[in-house]
């Protein structure tokens, strides 16, 4: 919202407040000034030199001796002599031959910096003295465009007749425009008068009530049924008040310069005097108005007077709005109708047919009030945006309706030659009851933490038009003014007091209270440790989008298979794009897309993500605070690219594979104290290579899968043709298991006696998992076999078809003595017997 300072100054004296200070104080009090536009003064895009660009008076217009289309104007610029300037301005040319003129203009001397009136856009140029067809011209009469006040090169500016001559033009037309970003649904701050009220309170200055008192000046009174129109509000819940004022015999034309400039500076384009006045009053007081062409308002029946009925729309009812769109309404939208049908969407936009036209003579001026939530509902459902709708949607004081109607009528009388009917119509079924709030000045201290004297509190409240009744020093009854529909609680009063007093004056304190019971957030601490470990294992952490493309789910399954999820997907009702339209049920799509994007620039990626997946399990239950959505944590990893980077000597450039990922995972499991507890079995999962996939469980609970991605899954994610190994694990299950393992942990014996090392090669079926053999050895050798390290695998003619040889390096060690050959012999025999029995293993002899 843009507020010209010159306009603000009509209601509160801001002349001697530096504009920057004014902006700062307003910003601190909650009306954020985002920008200050300077017009004419130093700092403006086009500063007007106060010595060279001044006001002046055109006294006469004479012919140019040598040019038919030009005239010579005699100008009084306040100096000792008059100046003759050459011009071709049409309105002056029309006065050729006339003298005794008293036209106030903007006059620029040679050396002034102005915009070129004839150039496209805004091009600055310096005015030079020139001979125009033999006549020396040292100065010129300026147009709006030349001064930067308009973007089209129209006629020259005519200043009000009471403008003094020879003063810097800045004193008359210079200005600052404050551009506000007002947060919150505050209709009362969406107008110049509302800001003036705040300035008055902040700076302790009087507020002029002139614009509110037009009804008194007009001698306007009201009745429920005025002469000109029949008024009915059928649905007062949507329209608490409707006023109608008649202005007869207006002549439609341009509005005066001052009003045009104010509208322009506030960001609106002047149209004609009637429309400009409704806009002007809306900007001034915050009350949207609507001017009907009275001649177009139809009666209910022939012979009766025109009627205005405010009612709910019939479902499916239609009307073309001012913007030319045909709108269809539902039964909760509020329409302004006349005897013949809809003429406007209440508080949102007028209808096309009853709009004011150049030929309009009589105006029926609507100043009404509408229920803000319904206005918002209507504008959202109709997707219609208008100044009126946006203001009514932020709540407008219903008391303003008649005040603003009278103000506009007064201006129509002054500026459009209208005659105002002295009795206006006012239906006001929704007049709000006075709203008192019980308040104690000590509340400010207990909420704000700073003592603000009661008298200062009273001053602030009064300046904001609250009335304070003192029932005792600690018992105030504060009557909320009608314009503050948002103030309902004592704490709302505290905010008013605090912000006007100034938060910059508040001391800084820290909470001086007992601490709440301290707790660890164990799940978060664990999660953060997981991140640290994985980073330590050389993986880069990513955080990807929780919203994914639903088509990425089938992409995760190789053809002929399908993924199953623990719950239903959560799709969006409104999404930015199909790629971001469903909450992820797996971390893999984000991980694989990240891998793919990065592999365009990097040869190797090693990624992990720790994050939540989301799926629906049940119907939401707001009373219990239950969303019905599960959001468990997962951990996912992906590796692709060469095992080692290039170096100046040969490195291992083969592709990262299953065992690289498993190595990382084993180190990770070791950190979690789960290395020995994890069960590895051959896995079958739609995302993975059928022969290179493991399913991992701990104590029977599934942790997840790990493996080389199925090449067709890689292809579906547009990954380069190379192995990608990945996993997605249930972090909750993993951490539960780790917590249990940590709890049951015992320190193993550290032996001081020498170990005995020997190798043992076993021939087993080629399909026997190595882990089974290793675990069998360790089990059989308990507790003296402390290690069985697989160091060689052989398949070939020496062991026979369908067989393989697994060679283990065994370590025997006792905590109590040095083992001798016979101890080892005994253990070895036991191991061989067990593996033979359990796995059909044979010892391979060299």
């Amino acid at each position, binding site marked *: 919202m843009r507020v010209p300072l010159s306009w603000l100054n009509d209601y509160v004296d801001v002349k001697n407040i530096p504009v920057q200070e004014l902006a700062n104080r307003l*910003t*601190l*009090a909650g009306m954020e000034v985002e920008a200050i536009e300077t017009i004419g003064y130093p700092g403006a895009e086009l500063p007007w030199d106060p010595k060279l660009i001044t006001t002046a008076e055109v006294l006469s217009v004479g012919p140019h001796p040598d040019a038919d289309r030009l005239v010579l104007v005699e100008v009084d610029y306040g100096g000792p002599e008059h100046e003759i300037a050459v011009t071709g301005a049409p309105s002056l040319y029309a006065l050729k031959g006339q003298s005794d003129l008293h036209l106030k203009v903007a006059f620029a001397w040679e050396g002034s910096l102005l915009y070129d009136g004839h150039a496209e856009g805004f091009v600055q140029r310096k005015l030079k003295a020139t001979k125009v067809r033999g006549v020396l011209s040292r100065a010129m009469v300026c147009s709006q465009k030349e001064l930067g006040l308009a973007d089209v090169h129209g006629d020259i500016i005519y200043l009000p007749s009471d403008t003094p001559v020879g003063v810097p033009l800045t004193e008359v037309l210079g200005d600052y425009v404050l551009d506000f970003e007002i947060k*919150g*649904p505050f209709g009362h701050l969406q107008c110049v008068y509302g800001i003036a009220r705040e300035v008055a309170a902040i700076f302790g200055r009087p507020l002029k009530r002139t614009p509110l008192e037009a009804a008194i000046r007009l001698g306007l009174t009201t009745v429920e049924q005025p002469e000109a129109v029949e008024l009915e509000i059928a649905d007062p819940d949507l329209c608490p008040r409707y006023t109608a004022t008649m202005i007869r015999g207006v002549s439609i034309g341009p509005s005066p310069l001052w009003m045009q400039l104010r509208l322009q500076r506030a960001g609106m384009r002047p149209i004609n005097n009637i429309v400009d006045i409704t806009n002007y009053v809306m900007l001034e007081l915050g009350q949207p108005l609507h001017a009907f062409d009275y001649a177009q308002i139809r009666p209910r029946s022939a012979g009766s007077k025109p009627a205005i009925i405010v009612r709910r729309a019939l479902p499916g009812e239609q009307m073309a709005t001012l913007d030319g769109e045909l709108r269809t309404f539902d039964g909760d939208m509020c329409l302004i109708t006349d005897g013949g049908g809809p003429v406007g969407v209440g508080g949102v936009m007028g209808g096309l047919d009853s709009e004011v036209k150049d030929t309009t003579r009589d105006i029926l001026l609507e100043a009404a009030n509408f229920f*803000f939530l319904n206005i*918002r*509902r209507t504008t959202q459902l109709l997707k219609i945006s208008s100044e009126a709708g946006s203001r009514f949607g932020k*709540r407008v004081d219903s008391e303003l309706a008649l005040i603003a109607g009278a103000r506009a009528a007064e201006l129509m009388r002054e500026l459009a030659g209208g005659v105002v009917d002295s009795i206006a119509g006012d239906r006001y079924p929704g007049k709000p009851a006075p709203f008192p709030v019980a308040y104690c000045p000590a509340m400010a201290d207990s*909420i*704000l*933490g700073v003592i603000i004297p009661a008298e200062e509190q009273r001053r602030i409240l009064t300046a904001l038009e609250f009335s304070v009744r003192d029932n005792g020093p600690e018992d105030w009854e504060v009557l909320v003014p009608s314009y503050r529909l948002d103030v309902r609680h004592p*704490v709302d009063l505290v*905010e008013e007091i*605090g912000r006007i007093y100034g*938060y*910059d004056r508040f001391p*800084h*304190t*820290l*909470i001086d*209270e*007992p*601490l*709440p019971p301290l707790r660890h*957030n164990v799940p*978060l601490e664990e999660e*953060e440790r997981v*991140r*640290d470990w994985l980073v330590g294992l*050389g*993986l*880069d952490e*990513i*955080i990807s989008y*929780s*919203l994914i493309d639903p088509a990425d789910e089938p992409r995760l399954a190789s053809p002929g298979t399908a993924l199953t999820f623990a719950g239903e997907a*959560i*799709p*969006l009702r*409104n*999404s930015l794009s199909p790629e971001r339209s469903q*909450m992820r049920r797996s971390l893999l799509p984000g991980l694989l897309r*990240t891998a793919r994007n*990065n592999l365009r*620039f*990097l040869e190797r*990626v*090693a990624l*992990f993500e720790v994050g*939540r997946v989301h799926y629906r399990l049940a119907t*939401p*239950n*707001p009373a219990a*605070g239950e*969303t019905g959505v599960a*959001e468990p944590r997962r951990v996912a990893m992906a590796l692709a690219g060469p095992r080692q980077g290039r*170096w*100046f000597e040969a*490195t291992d450039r083969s592709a990262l594979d299953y065992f690289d990922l498993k190595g990382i995972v084993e180190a990770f499991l070791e950190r979690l104290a789960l290395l020995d507890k994890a069960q590895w079995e051959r896995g079958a999962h739609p995302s993975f290579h059928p022969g290179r996939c493991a399913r991992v469980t701990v104590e029977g609970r599934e942790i997840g899968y790990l493996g080389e991605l199925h090449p067709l899954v890689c292809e579906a994610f547009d990954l380069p043709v190379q192995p990608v190994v990945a996993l997605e694990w249930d972090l909750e299950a993993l951490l539960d298991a780790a917590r249990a393992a940590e709890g049951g942990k015992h320190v193993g014996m550290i032996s001081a006696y020498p170990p005995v090392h020997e190798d043992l090669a076993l021939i087993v079926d080629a399909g026997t998992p190595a882990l089974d053999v290793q675990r069998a050895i360790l089990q059989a050798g308990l507790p003296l076999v402390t290690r069985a390290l697989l160091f060689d695998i052989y398949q070939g003619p020496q062991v026979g078809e369908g067989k393989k040889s697994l060679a283990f390096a065994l370590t025997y060690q006792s905590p109590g003595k040095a083992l001798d050959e016979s101890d080892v012999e005994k253990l070895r025999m036991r191991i061989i017997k067990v593996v033979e029995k359990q796995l059909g293993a044979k010892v391979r002899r060299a």
Partner: protein
Amino acid sequence: MTLFEALEQVYNEAQAALELAGDSAGLEAWYAAYLGRKGTVTLQTRAVGQLPKDERPAFGQRVNEVKQALEEAYAARAEAIKQAEMLRTLESGAIDITLPGRPVPQGHLHLTTRTLRQIYDIFAMMGFEVFEAPDVELEAYNFDLLNIPDYHPARDMWDTFWVQTPPGEPRLLLRTHTSPGQIRAMRERATHQEPIRVILPGKCYRYEQITARSEHQFYQLEGLAVGRGITLTDLIGTMHQFAELFYGTGRKIRVRSSYFPFTEPSVEVDTNCILCGGGGCGVCKYTGWLEIAGAGMVHPVVLQNGGYDPAEWSGFAFGMGIERPSMMKYDVSDIRLYYGNDLRFLRQF
């Protein structure tokens, strides 16, 4: 020439020859030539029999002296040669120490994780624990219970992603802010009517066009303190403390009045621009200030909804963006780098 003279001559000769032995092979050859079984010095000792008896002891003694001296000289020479040879070996083994080391793959934490941890640590010092709340949230928690009824103009402050839910079911959405966690934290703690100090981090979502300055997904961190006498000046002090610990000592704080439906009074907290220090620059839009949090005193209606009687309890809440501080600190101009996960970006942290 007498035998004595011959011995001295051999001795001199041997000493001179030893000087010339430059490496182990030459040294061994010298040894064989002089002190070996057929060496000249050895042969001299055998000539003792040619001498008259009375001269033999003197000659024998001299021979032994010479042998011993030569043995010692040999040992010294051998040591010198060994050292010289080792030096030569080491010199030939010199490497270019500027060559790169064998690469070790490095992992990196995401920038957001790093920022969050920094903030967790700061608030932990002030007694705030981390409390987590869901991403997919009930409409009631995201809006209504925070004093934002349906169609209320305040809802315009948040462009919302709505979840497809069957007609008639309570509506779900993706939380637009971390504030619903306030209600969840309060309702959990209200059973024991405990004071509260929590921070609530998390992903938030907004139905907004994605640009370099706005993302549909971002992180926020909410703070909530509830107690029996918490005041706005406590909030201001806490924010100042945070700014000093997070942005560095000597920070200034500016508190502006603002509007949030769930706080009353509502404020916005700025700190002097970390880039220009307050003089004005492009980052702070020439105001000298950067907004660090929206905050305020918990609205009585919200306290009530959380199960705390506003007549007895008061509290403050604040919310801050997680990406903006690091964007300012590292001059990151595009927020899409964060969750687009370009490793060339993430690996710089």
